[in-house]
């Protein structure tokens, strides 16, 4: 049974020209203990979709879905109080900017303890013991000394470790990591990724990793789902998707990696993700697609649960000939 199930999720924002769709008909499932990577550029709706599933979408947003289930509970009908108990305990989240996510006025030890107190209570001595143990688990050495540090006294990498300790404090079934390493040095990125992968294995929790870096995601995810302008473009096992992408967008994301370029010219994807008010009516990616043909400009391709493209790519990376 899936741990998280999102069916036909749509999110729209009000504008002077009516409702602007930010996410359109998104399906996403995550099994228990699975590592899923959610990949796409800024503006693709990856963070927004996950925030909506957690009940944290902005107030102005209109969120609708056919199904929104987590661990057998229907999130669409769950009362607010019950949903609050779920967030942070059963499903926890780590954000991009650790230093901005932590409260500068309290010690990191206090803030980790607060996460435990909010959901499980316990005596203060017991909480302190658990915090010190968590700090060791996330690789913060000398936890007794670090317990009384304020966020500004720690590096970005160490603050992200604190955020992860807070997130796993109540042994969540699902950990959502939204660009957890984008503000960090590459050396520290590698450490944080390895830590997330190790904690995921040790606790058997599911991990939803959100990033614009498909290579980084592929290094720890079992499955990858690619989003573009609020829609799923492709999903599949990470190794297969990276080795032989079927959607031109996935192919373009991979080609844009600096390692994939020959000489000094990088393979940029021309243009940018269209904003909700400027999206084409047919294929969303078509204006930036190197394989686009006339049909791509008149028909919006459907999604079969694997790829959304009129002429998906074959193993050689070329569009398959269209059926007559």
């Amino acid at each position, binding site marked *: 049974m899936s741990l998280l199930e999102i069916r036909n999720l749509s999110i729209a924002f009000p504008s002077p020209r009516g409702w602007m769709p930010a996410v359109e008909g998104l399906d996403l499932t995550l099994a228990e203990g699975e590592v899923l990577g959610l990949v796409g550029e800024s503006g693709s709706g990856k963070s927004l979709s996950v925030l909506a599933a957690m009940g944290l979408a902005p107030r102005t947003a209109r969120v609708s879905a056919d199904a929104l289930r987590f661990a057998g509970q229907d999130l669409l009908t769950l009362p607010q109080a019950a949903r609050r108990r779920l967030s942070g305990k059963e499903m926890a989240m780590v954000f991009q900017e650790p230093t901005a996510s932590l409260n500068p006025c309290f010690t990191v030890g206090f803030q980790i303890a607060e996460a435990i107190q909010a959901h499980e209570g316990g005596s203060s001595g017991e909480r302190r013991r658990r915090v010190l143990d968590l700090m060791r688990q996330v690789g913060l050495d000398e936890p007794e000394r670090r317990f009384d540090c304020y966020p500004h006294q720690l590096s970005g*990498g160490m603050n992200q470790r604190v955020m992860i300790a807070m997130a796993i404090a109540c042994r969540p079934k699902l950990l959502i990591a939204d660009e957890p390493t984008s503000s960090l040095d590459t050396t520290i990125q*590698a450490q944080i990724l*390895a830590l997330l992968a190790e904690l995921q294995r040790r606790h058997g929790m599911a991990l939803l990793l959100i990033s614009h*870096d498909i*290579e980084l995601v592929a290094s720890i995810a079992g499955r990858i789902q690619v989003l573009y302008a609020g829609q799923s473009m492709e999903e599949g096992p990470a190794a297969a998707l*990276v080795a032989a992408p079927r959607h031109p967008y996935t192919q*373009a*994301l991979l080609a844009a990696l*600096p390692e994939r370029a020959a000489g000094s010219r990088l393979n940029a994807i021309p243009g*940018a993700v269209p904003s909700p008010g400027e999206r084409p009516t047919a294929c969303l990616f078509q204006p930036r697609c190197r394989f686009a043909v006339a049909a791509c400009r008149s028909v919006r391709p459907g999604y079969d649960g694997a790829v959304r493209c009129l002429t998906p790519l074959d193993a050689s990376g070329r569009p398959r000939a269209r059926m007559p």
Partner: protein
Amino acid sequence: MTAPLLAAEEVARDYGAVKAVDGVSFTIAGGRTLAVVGESGSGKSTLGRLVALLEPPDRGRLLFEDGPTQGLARPAARALRRQIQMVFQNPYGSLNPRKKVAQILAEPLAINTSANRAERRERVRAMMGLVGLAPEHEQRYPHMFSGGQRQRIAIARALMLQPRLVVADEPVSALDLSIQAQVLNLMMDLKERLGLAYLFISHDLAVVRHVADDLVVLYLGRAVEQGAAAALLDRPAHPYTRALIASRPRLGKSLPPLLAGEPVAGIAADSCAFHPRCSLAVARCRGERPVLRPLDARLVACHRAEELG
């Protein structure tokens, strides 16, 4: 041989007790790109600010075309500053949100040149075309652009005074990979068309490989390896350079090899600053600080560089 465009001679900058940059030397020839790589706290941004003449070095000196950069009379100092411009990491913070693109780009001309309104307008138009912005973007505010387009505006602003050297401090690290590629390609095109030199500051060696002619690897304010970029990246001689190269997650590799820990400041002056994180460290590394020495067509500061092979 012609003089380099810019030469740094043992430049150093202290912030209180912290030696942010501690005796770094290099040259940048006209039309070349020197990349400076290192982790947070390596001093790479401070080095960029020194080269951009935003702050003076505490020790050592910077020469521009063999001439001094400090202690100049006002007109000479102003003329020099026009030659060196800067692009910052965050295109959201470095553009004035209250000004339209046309005003942002015309401002350097209004302050530094005698160009009249019509001339300024014409040069703004020409520059927008050069960096790939459409004429109708002129009357828009920064918030109306995506991150990649904002960085194009920041680059355009840096180029308005026709500088010879542009200091770019992590110019693409706030952008998506697909957009990073666009901006890097633009920077390389501009280098070619305008004969620009870059001081390119980055923590990402995969990016550096595509833009750099020469490379300086900084660790806690000191250069640990420097030389031609291709040679350093293909055959790193310093264990730190090697670890930096290996730290980026790669496809087909379940987990990247790790460089453990973070830079440890305040290591005794008579030991190698990298030794607490180095898997090759021996007693000598704790008792004697390695100095930069020539090896295999580069400079490297490591006692055991020969053994890395």
